[in-house]
């Protein structure tokens, strides 16, 4: 599917494999036009400040700084940042902490591709 989207996304995950999978989902659904990547929480915050993406997908469990720490740092920089948490751990306390810290939504690994696309679309459209 070709895209007419002008949305810039930052994909944050320490697993290059998961970044590829997410890229494939976002591109095949025509959701984004530019994709940036980061492999840990510290690089994520730096990339956010540099590229100012419209939306961020943020893995939770990462080296250096985890996804919750990076989420909090980005929200401090831009309280209107649109961040979707990506987690294989659906423990309530982790998800609740992320939402409380400003995450707009979350998706669970392994991915349901249509659910990822739906959540992304919803968050992209949100104010």
């Amino acid at each position: 599917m070709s895209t007419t989207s002008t949305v810039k996304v930052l994909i944050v995950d320490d697993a290059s494999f998961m970044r590829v999978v997410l890229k494939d989902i976002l591109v095949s659904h025509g959701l984004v036009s530019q994709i940036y990547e980061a492999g840990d929480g510290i690089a994520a915050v730096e990339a956010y400040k540099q590229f100012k993406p419209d939306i961020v997908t943020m893995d939770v469990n990462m080296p250096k700084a985890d996804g919750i720490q990076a989420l909090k740092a980005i929200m401090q920089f831009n309280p209107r940042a649109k961040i979707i948490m990506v987690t294989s751990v659906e423990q309530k306390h982790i998800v609740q902490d992320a939402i409380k810290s400003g995450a707009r939504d979350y998706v669970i690994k392994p991915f349901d591709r249509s659910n990822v696309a739906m959540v992304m679309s919803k968050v992209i459209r949100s104010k």
Partner: protein
Amino acid sequence: MEILSTSNDLQKLNSVLDSFIVQKTIPSLRSILEEPITHHLRNTQEIPLINLDLIISNLEEMNIMSAVYIKCVGDIHMGVLLYLPEEESKTLAAKLLGKPISSELAGIATSSISEIGNILTASLINAISIDMGYKICSSVPGYAVEFFRTLLEAVVSDFGNEFDTLVVSNVELHGVNSGIGIHILLIQDPSEVKKLVI
């Protein structure tokens, strides 16, 4: 050297872990591999540290394994070692990436194997957390290709056991169509057993 767990406790633990694997781990792997999965929880036993040979079969002894290790901490302390023969891990990576792996596993191929370990471990701790209310955090996955004995010794050393024994559960998962077999060792302190068999 004292064995701390009763056979009844170990049997119960085996049964509890089996139910968690059926509830969460198998559906996760089925979703990733897009094929039916069979499983077999071989056994749960308490093993003296000086006798790790008890969990090394002849086949495993001779094979170089591709392995992912994840340490879980919090209310439950557990080590998870996912492993499969190196050649079979290439088949798994090829399936995940949708292209053949001709040479050594590297880059995105090793990342895909690590992520399988990450997701399957998370599925298990999700099941424990949801069912028993424990808060558990998992480490970033560590990936290695080594002889199984070397892997096991490294894992036991890293696990940081306070006792002279370990409780080890041995799980096998098989993709029915692809024939891919994934082994998982769940390692716990004997003092942790009671937390899961309440």
